[in-house]
């Protein structure tokens, strides 16, 4: 397992002199994973996000991931109600949420059970738990708490009880509000965080609140900090070994939102759906200032129809949704492909099918995005694998959509949506903003679908352009956009629309291989699993395994050279957060085995056998889970 104990990760040659707080020498660490878990609404996420931002500002690599219960107000003190955040931070770049946590702050014992069920902890994990429950007037609670503590100790956790609320009560009247900031202060002390940076963060987080609220939160922060300095002997120090460049810290959905602005998109049309909606929460706040608007449509069908209308009228548009919304948009995606309307569709994937796992991660929309249409529907599909790519790929999607006059589906997922990772501050390129609507007269002799024979590309007139008048139709049509059922015209239209995919394919380069160019095992992934896969692969390589990985960004058209690359490895295996039958499941044979989406696709594409490692737990892929399989495959 990774991070099996803190000592293993202790750096001896840390440049940063170990901080000393209250006489205790802080122990230098390369990285660590902490969690804050609570009932919903207790502010664990806010505290964790602030901690993550402060760490990023101190030059650390950071990855935070939210722990979200399925319901808005789950019952208090329930396992299913575990709400909170995990922060993995270190002196170098952090690319994923890692395996078991080193330390967790828990507001009650029941939510901890919820996390234990997810294998979030290991023997030795430090548990800092609110201990007010042992004084509860409700005998059942008292009992539950005592029992749980015994069990935690039996599991080998390093349990430390803290009367958090009682401490808060010394500084504020209502300790249930603001306890999270006290915890933030405590963690800042334990991990030698710069408390002035935490103060600044609180001011930012509560910028819309009154000065009184800000003051009380600052008081609690400082109280938690001093309390920990005096009462907890845990002190760690995480330095920075990264090149210090200007960076931005945000989650994937905010990055998508900024990408929308950077792409010069003017219309974002949506219908609320988890986990995509927060993109539009963010945009609704700021989009107007950059010349765009969010349209909340009456449903997902209307949302995409609206975006297509806007795009037809020359205004760049995006529609943002998740699985169930994608299903509803199907017919309009077909229209955008058929009638060649540029459009960006962002699908923040969640668990499916149907309403599925609304808040949880899955990669199950892959084949739908590529093939999920009646008829032949060339559609570009690309996937972001980091927060940074969430930003840049929106811009790329818009450019592709417009240059090739077609829908582009950008896949992200629930893990990227709420994951926070700093990335290099992008350059703002004025050219990437969409141009004003072209209203110069159209050359009459150019037909609205004058397909270039080689590339399938044609130029489109925009309403307002004199002499460009044409009637867009979803029916089979000729170059004039005249409805035409003649067999050869339909063949030609399909051929030309397909040709564009080949033209895009021509512009792609083979994927980079992480590790050796050939070997025993090649791991193939796509999307948010990138960090976990590469971490596992590099650990396996350190153990002597002959394993490499590659990660796909373009799924349709798929990046070139795969067959040739696959042939250089004895075995190829995908890693996916998807469903696939296990080989030794009852009734399963080679013939009826239902494979995971990417492995299915790559087998068909390359005619090479591709195995898979997959789960459908609704949890991000962990490096330890992958490493276990790699060890088995490689005999390590």
């Amino acid at each position, binding site marked *: 397992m990774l991070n099996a104990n803190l000592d293993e990760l202790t750096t001896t040659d840390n440049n940063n002199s170990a901080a000393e707080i209250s006489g205790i020498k802080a122990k230098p660490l390369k990285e660590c994973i902490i969690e804050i878990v609570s009932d919903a609404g207790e502010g664990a996420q806010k505290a964790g996000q602030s901690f993550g931002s402060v760490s*990023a500002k101190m030059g650390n690599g950071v990855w935070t991931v939210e722990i979200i219960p399925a319901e808005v107000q789950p019952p208090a003190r329930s396992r299913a109600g575990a709400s909170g955040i995990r922060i993995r931070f270190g002196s170098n770049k952090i690319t994923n949420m890692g395996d078991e946590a080193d330390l967790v702050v828990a507001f009650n014992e029941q939510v901890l059970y919820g996390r234990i069920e997810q294998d979030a902890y290991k023997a030795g994990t430090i548990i800092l738990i609110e201990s007010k429950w042992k004084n509860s007037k409700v005998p059942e609670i008292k009992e539950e708490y005592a029992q749980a503590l015994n069990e935690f100790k039996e599991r080998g956790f390093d349990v430390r009880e803290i009367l958090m609320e009682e401490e808060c009560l010394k500084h504020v009247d209502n300790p249930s509000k603001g306890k999270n900031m006290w915890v933030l202060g405590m963690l800042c002390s334990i991990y030698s965080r710069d408390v002035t940076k935490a103060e600044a963060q609180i001011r*930012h987080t509560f910028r819309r609140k009154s000065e009184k609220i800000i003051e009380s939160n600052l008081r609690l922060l400082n109280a938690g900090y001093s309390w920990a300095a005096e009462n907890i002997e845990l002190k760690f120090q995480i330095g920075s070994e990264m090149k210090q460049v*200007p*960076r*931005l810290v945000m989650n994937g959905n*905010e990055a998508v939102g*900024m990408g929308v*602005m950077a792409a*010069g998109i*003017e219309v974002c049309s949506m219908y609320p759906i988890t986990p995509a909606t927060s993109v539009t929460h963010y945009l609704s706040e*700021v989009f*107007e*200032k*950059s*010349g*765009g*608007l969010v349209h909340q449509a*009456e*449903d997902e*069908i*209307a949302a995409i*129809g*609206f*975006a*297509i*209308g*806007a795009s*037809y*009228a020359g*205004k760049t*548009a995006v529609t943002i949704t998740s699985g169930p919304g994608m299903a509803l948009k199907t*017919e309009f995606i077909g*229209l955008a492909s058929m009638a060649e309307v540029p459009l960006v569709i962002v699908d923040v994937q969640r668990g499916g099918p149907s309403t599925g796992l609304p808040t949880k991660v899955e990669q199950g929309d892959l084949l739908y995005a590529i093939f999920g249409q009646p008829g032949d529907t060339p559609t570009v599909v690309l996937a972001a694998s980091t927060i940074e790519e969430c930003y840049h790929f929106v811009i790329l999607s818009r450019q592709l959509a*417009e240059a090739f006059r077609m829908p582009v589906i950008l896949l992200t997922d629930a893990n990227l949506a709420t994951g926070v990772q*700093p990335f290099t*501050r*992008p350059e*703002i390129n*004025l050219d990437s*903003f969409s*141009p*004003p*609507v*072209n*209203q*110069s*007269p159209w050359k009459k002799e150019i037909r609205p679908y004058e397909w270039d024979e080689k590339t399938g590309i044609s*130029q489109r*007139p925009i*309403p307002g*352009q*004199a*002499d460009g*008048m*044409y*009637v*867009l*139709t*979803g029916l089979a049509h000729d170059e004039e956009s005249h*409805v035409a059922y003649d067999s050869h015209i339909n063949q030609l239209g399909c051929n030309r629309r397909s040709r564009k995919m080949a033209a895009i394919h021509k512009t792609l380069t083979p994927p980079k291989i992480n590790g050796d160019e050939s070997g025993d095992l090649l791991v193939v992934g796509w999307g948010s699993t990138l960090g976990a896969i590469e971490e596992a692969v590099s650990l396996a390589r350190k153990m002597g395994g002959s394993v490499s990985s590659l990660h796909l960004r373009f799924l349709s058209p798929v990046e070139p050279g795969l067959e040739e690359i696959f042939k250089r490895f004895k075995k190829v295996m995908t890693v996916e957060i998807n469903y696939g039958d296990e080989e030794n499941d009852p009734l399963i044979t080679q013939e009826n085995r239902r494979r995971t989406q990417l492995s299915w696709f790559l087998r068909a594409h390359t005619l090479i056998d591709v195995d898979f490692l997959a789960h459908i737990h609704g949890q991000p892929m962990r490096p330890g889970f992958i490493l276990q399989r790699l060890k088995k495959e490689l005999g390590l």
Partner: protein
Amino acid sequence: MFGLQSECMLHVPEQYHTLSDYEGAQPRWCPSCGDHAVLTAVQKVCREKQLPPEKTVFVSGIGCSSRFPHYMKTYGFHGLHGRPFPVAEGIKFRRPDLDVFVATGDGDCCSIGAGHWIHAIRYNMNMTVMLLDNEIYGLTKMQTSPTSRKGTISNTHPHGSILPPINPLITTLGVANASFVAQTVDWNPAHLYSTLLAAHSHQGFSFVRILQRCPHFSPNLFAEEISNPDLTVLLTHENGIEAVEEVQKMYKNSVVHDPADMNEAREIAQREDLIPIGLFFCDPSKEQYDKYGASNIGFSPQKKADALNVEFEKYAV
């Protein structure tokens, strides 16, 4: 990729548009289909208003009636069954300079597209909507429509349809923010024309239900009303639809109805004895969503970049 010139208002040389400037492909409707009359009336409205064809967009769904855009020589969008409204709204949202018309059928609007219809009324964006209501599914060959009268024999209800019909006027008048609701008939070209002209002049979502003959599938549907004009009641008012002399002569039954009076409009819409034609309701002061859409258009790339930079600063470390 595209010639990128400024978003200028086009300088069209002073040019008088004749009817032929609006005539697109040869209509393929059945010869005596009521849709022909609507097309002619619309082309006349375009000529009367001298609409620049390049600034005019006809949007439709799928159905016989939704073939409409192909027969105009303007921009057109013949999209999906039931979805003309979202598309039309998207077109209009950031392009206040475009004149948008929607042609839709009773299946398109009142069945598969009913959700969008309700919301389109509420968005109240400036567009002219023609519901070509033949009380049947034409294109797919005579299935019951939500506006088919109870007992209508169709291919899906060979023993007669079971449910009472939706009355599109009552529905429209029942939606918050409705701003223009009228009814006319395809067989009275003068009233049809005046109604569409008034609808086009209204600022907001102008909804016109046009009773439309489908001789192919229901040859006798409006036969009685056509042969006996007394079965029609003409709504008149100084703020209503102009009724030229020939219309007034034809329809002896008339009532004065103030289109500002919503309650009376709803009462009249419920009448089952006579076909009321004219303007039921009009209120140009209703909230218009397209005004919101046009509130921040035309930012320069630099202005967009500056806004983005401000955002970067908020997230910078």
